[in-house]
């Protein structure tokens, strides 16, 4: 077995809350309470859980946007927290992120070219010609045209904007893409297009996804392995087929029981799709 691309080891994160009183110590909340997992190159790991489970904290720690209270995030065996600023910047070309809402994650005053090429300019100091060429490649990979480079975000639909956000993540040719609820703000028909695209990109470029979602069906579709987070702890971990058909932990069982659309008319229709 090859070494994993990403290893997360006993990761904890505490946040300090505002003090209730000057005389008392500030209360703390434990957002992550010792999370460990490994993720191999070219695979997808799904993280499911509800609000407050620690999903987004995990994303920020993996992206080295915040420092853990304890524990490690190792990318290719290197602890991100031991890197100095220059080395971290170098490493960031391997790590990219796609956010939930493509309406707020793109700057409305910047053209698609400026947005998509920014990681290259910032992380590698690439020249204008290279930026334009690579941005056109990235757009082509997500199914947009080079002519779109000069346009602004408001000229695109939600699904197209999410494609632009994915192009921005792809442009550094990252090893790992952290996708935090990448399709939950999209309409159903558009969601399907973006999910297909993300799977195509994995086949084509071998990218690795840390895929955070509250939608169990989405995770089931795109992930090789799933962890279920609840109150900062991994309560269950496994292959999606097994985990979703035979959940062991009461919390996973509760999550699955709450999935809508379990009445007979709807389920029968599902079994005989068009």
């Amino acid at each position, binding site marked *: 077995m090859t070494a994993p691309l990403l290893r997360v080891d006993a990761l904890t994160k505490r946040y300090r809350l505002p003090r209730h009183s000057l005389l008392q110590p500030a209360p703390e909340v434990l957002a992550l309470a010792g999370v460990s997992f490994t993720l191999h190159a070219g695979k997808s790991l799904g993280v499911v859980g509800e609000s407050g489970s620690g999903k987004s904290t995990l994303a920020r720690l993996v992206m080295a946007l915040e420092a853990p209270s304890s524990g490690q995030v190792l990318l290719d065996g290197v602890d991100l927290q031991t890197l100095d600023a220059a080395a971290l910047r170098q490493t960031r070309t391997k790590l990219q992120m796609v956010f939930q809402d493509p309406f707020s994650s793109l700057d409305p005053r910047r053209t698609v070219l400026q947005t998509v090429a920014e990681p290259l300019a910032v992380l590698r100091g690439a020249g204008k010609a290279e930026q334009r060429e690579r941005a056109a490649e990235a757009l082509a990979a997500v199914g947009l045209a080079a002519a779109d480079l000069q346009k602004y975000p408001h000229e695109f639909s939600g699904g197209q904007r999410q494609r632009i956000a994915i192009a921005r993540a792809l442009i550094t040719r990252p090893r790992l893409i952290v996708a935090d609820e990448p399709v939950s703000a999209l309409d159903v028909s558009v969601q*399907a297009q973006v999910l297909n695209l993300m799977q195509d990109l994995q086949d084509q470029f071998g990218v690795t996804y840390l895929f955070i979602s509250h939608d169990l069906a989405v995770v089931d579709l795109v992930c090789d392995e799933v962890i279920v987070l609840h109150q900062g702890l991994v309560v269950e971990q496994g292959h999606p087929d097994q985990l979703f058909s035979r959940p062991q932990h009461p919390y996973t069982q509760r999550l699955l029981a709450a999935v809508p659309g*379990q009445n007979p008319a709807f389920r029968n229709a599902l079994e005989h799709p*068009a």
Partner: protein
Amino acid sequence: MALLEVRDLRVTLQTSRGAHDALRAVSFDLERGHTLGLIGESGCGKSITALALMGLLPDGARVAGSIRFDGRELTTLDEPTLCTLRGHRIGMVFQEPMTALNPLHTVGRQIAEPLRLHKGLSRSAARAEALRLLERVQLPQAAQRLSAYPHQLSGGQRQRVVIAIALACGPDLLVADEPTTALDVTIQREVLDLIKELVREDGMGLLLISHNLAVMADTVERLLVMYGGTVVESGPTAAVFQRLAHPYTRGLFAARPRLGLPRGTRLSTIPGRVPALADMPPGCPFADRCDRVIDACRAAPPPAVAVGALHEARCLRICE
């Protein structure tokens, strides 16, 4: 006479590219004690339908056709009269409970407000009623929560407060626009169960708006599928899912990721995107994205064709 009768409702909005129809010839009925769902994607007109019912359309919107609520025509009512209906006979629940609530007022005061305004209750009577309502929507520690502010509650608790406000005056019609979209699945289940139970107990009519097919399957008896400002398919919920008569309904259904699909399955997609209001074609609004399209589809809007009992689709090429 149905509680709500909508006939040939047409709403014209001012856009940056001129005046365009956001709703075209939408008709439906909703009886007391029954549940109706409007489903569709962004821009299909489902929220505009709800806003039209409540007289909350944006400035410059023009309304044609008829909305009769309990025998009374709403489209011609003046604003003061509409105010006596909204929050009184018609309760509303919106998607985002944080923006629907006023962050500066306590929960108790916000629930008491419609009671004081519409029912003329005294301060103490309204507070007592607010407590009863909070208990009814199963908010834990209701008595203490009366003096809480919205930020002190979780998303699910806030939505229960919004539902309590909507129910305060005992409305005949409850309009819920994506009431659980901002909530976690376990909370979504609780809130939907609560809404269903309240509708059953009070005999209200429920108009539920959602983009989620599965939520609809669990909650409403009758379903209207909307696309491009028109109702493309309507029928009893179970029959709609069984038949999937309109190509759009079928496409929407097939595009859903669902539990149990093998890893890497390609989802079927609907090519293209919803046309902007200004680009809406003269014929079937779905024609440019439909894989069954023929020339006649583009010529004129297709008529409604019966495909079953109380079940029809606006399509020339109905799926078998």
